[in-house]
């Protein structure tokens, strides 16, 4: 086994694919000489040259549009949107072009495009750089959405995304870049749409994404000390959702908490809660509880940011609420 940081794992998946296939290239703002605003693409310009590590103008719509064109023409482009907040500027290309061409052409046109983006709170980036917008994209048929939480998962899932023939948007979380974890020596592809159970438990399933996977693991440990056995379930892929694994877990524990950093209202967790009640209603012993950010822009002030977004203590409170030990 090899130990890599989340950041290194992202880079390793891209570099390995680029060494293997000339069709793979990367494109984005400041990704070449600067090595990316988060340092993810450092050293890649030196290895692969400016043809395959391409700096772009500050125009998200153009970045995604060019990626779509290249993908249709037979390449496997990886485009980077520096902050997921800036996907707003590329929505027409993502939602109405990338997600639609395969359908509208009767399957004749494929769009093997990977859109990487990052974001999230925890370091006071302010309201325009801290959002978690995955819920917008899971709502669009034709897009797959991936949100890995560990170095091993991001490496295996980014690899699978690059070799997927449909457009994928892959979310990275800013505060996860530094975490380290063991990864296989050789990249092992991870199937898109397969969940991972980080920790098995009996009393309640916590379905968590991104940073909240780690917060939920902390909460699970604290709950364990109080005699509550928690299963931590990371879907890894938000669209398509691994419903079979999700329902099996809830049928076992009879209780569920959904935790993500994005605002609770209309969040991805609402869909998960709905799926659970549709498919496991007779197994539920308590209402599904959602944990997410308060319904407000993310404040700049660190104490306020801390207050708005969820942490382990919020997950723990939800766990206790579902098992009736408030």
């Amino acid at each position, binding site marked *: 086994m090899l130990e890599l940081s989340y950041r290194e794992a992202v880079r390793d998946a891209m570099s390995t694919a680029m060494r293997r296939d000339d069709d793979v290239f990367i494109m984005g703002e400041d990704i070449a000489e600067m090595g990316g605003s988060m340092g993810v693409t450092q050293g890649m310009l030196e290895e692969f040259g400016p043809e395959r590590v391409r700096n772009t103008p500050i125009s998200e719509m153009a970045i995604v549009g060019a990626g779509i064109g290249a993908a249709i023409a037979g390449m496997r482009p990886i485009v980077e949107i520096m902050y997921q907040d800036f996907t707003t500027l590329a929505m027409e290309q993502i939602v109405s072009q990338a997600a639609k061409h395969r359908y509208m052409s009767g399957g004749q046109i494929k769009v093997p495009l990977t859109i990487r983006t990052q974001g999230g709170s925890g370091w006071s980036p302010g309201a325009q750089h801290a959002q978690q917008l995955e819920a917008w994209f899971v709502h669009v048929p034709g897009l797959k959405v991936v949100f890995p939480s560990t170095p091993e998962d991001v490496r295996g899932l980014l690899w699978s995304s690059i070799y997927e023939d449909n457009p994928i948007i892959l979310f990275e979380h800013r505060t996860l870049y530094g975490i380290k974890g063991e990864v296989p020596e050789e990249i092992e592809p991870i199937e898109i749409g397969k969940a991972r159970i980080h920790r098995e438990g009996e009393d309640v399933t916590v379905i968590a994404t991104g940073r909240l996977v780690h917060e939920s693991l902390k909460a699970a440990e604290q709950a364990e000390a109080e005699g509550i056995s928690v299963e931590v379930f990371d879907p890894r892929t938000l669209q398509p959702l691994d419903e079979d694994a999700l329902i099996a877990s809830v049928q076992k524990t*009879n209780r569920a908490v959904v935790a993500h950093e994005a605002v609770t209202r209309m969040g991805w967790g609402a869909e998960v809660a709905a799926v659970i009640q549709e498919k496991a209603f*007779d197994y*539920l*012993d*308590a209402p599904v*509880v959602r944990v997410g950010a308060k319904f407000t822009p993310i404040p700049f002030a660190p104490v306020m940011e801390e207050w708005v977004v969820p942490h382990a203590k919020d997950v723990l409170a939800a766990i206790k*609420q579902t098992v*009736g030990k408030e």
Partner: protein
Amino acid sequence: MSSQVTLPRLGQGMETGTIVRWLKSEGESVEKGEPLYELDTEKVTQEVEAEASGVLLKILAGEGEEIEVGKAIAVIGQEGEEVSVPAEAPAAPKEEPQAEAEPEPNAEPEPKPQPEAEPGQHAASPNGGRIKASPLARRIARERGIELSSLRGTGPEGRIVAEDVERASATGAVATSATAAAPVPSGEVEVVKLNQMRKTIARRMTEAWEAPAFQISMSADMTAAIRLRESLLARVEEGGVRPTYSDILTKVVALALMRHRDVNAHFAGDSVKLFPTANIGIAVAVPHGLVVPVIASCEARTIPEIAVARADIVSRTREGKLRAEDLEGGTFTISNLGMYGVERFAAVLNPPQAGILAVGAIEERAVVVDGDLEIQPRMDMTLTVDHRSVDGATASEFLATAKSFLEEPGLAL
């Protein structure tokens, strides 16, 4: 927004509690985590902390009142906030099987909706006949033919959860509505209301009486046990806990239970649960009652360790500082009345445990050994077992093992 304080369930099997004393009065501010009231449960009296900060707006349950688990007992909120007291659930559950499904059309209007309810927290509404139960609880009740209206919910906001149905299913008990106490002529008769502990003892001993139990007795020569205790006492450090005969007995019984696991068991209706560890309950007398705190895994503890655990649990019992978990998980019970001069007695089962050992005093007795009269320190032991799971031969083998370990402790090695 105000929040209701509901009566918590502090241990398995707790169904009601009595508020001994409110530590805050209406209008006083409380901090989350501050002791709010003293609660007399079936087994222990303990302080309960506030779960929310704010002002104690209203006390709904008076001191001395017996409350069901899950019932609202107070409201905590912001100063000046108006309190809407939830209507009481109908005292007598409806008998018609359909009642639970049909909301009453003329139910009282709901209190005006809260501006923004927290997710997962319903405003308690007058329930208009609708029984609050989780989907899982409903399914289990349906499958086992249990009437939900006969159950009491212990989940959040009084919801009937799966555990409540499982419990009713296991005991076969269908809660009956409390009948009013028959009027008792006053005059010379002093009427002492049962406290929680007395009620629990009454209920559990009545339950025990349903078990077809039988007793067997043996008497043990305590010469070796006395020597063992002397050598243990010689090793006690200054200020350390002195091992008693009870501690030796606890250890010996635990080791015997490990060799006869059928006796280290719970009878559970359609199954018998055999436990991997000997968690021994020690019957301790307290004023006007009796509690049985448990020392877990006695087979793995040394006698001095058992002595320390016993001293701690007995002193906490007498000081009323037991926690609910001290009373849970027992697999077998020992009751010792030797200190009262009792020679032998038969104990009543402590259900669902399959066995209980009653122990009398050590006394010198004349015994015939090889045709000669000898004076020996002897102790009588009487084992009561639940015949549904333990038979005479099994019980005898267990008791014989315990006796042989007392007479020759080396055999336990």
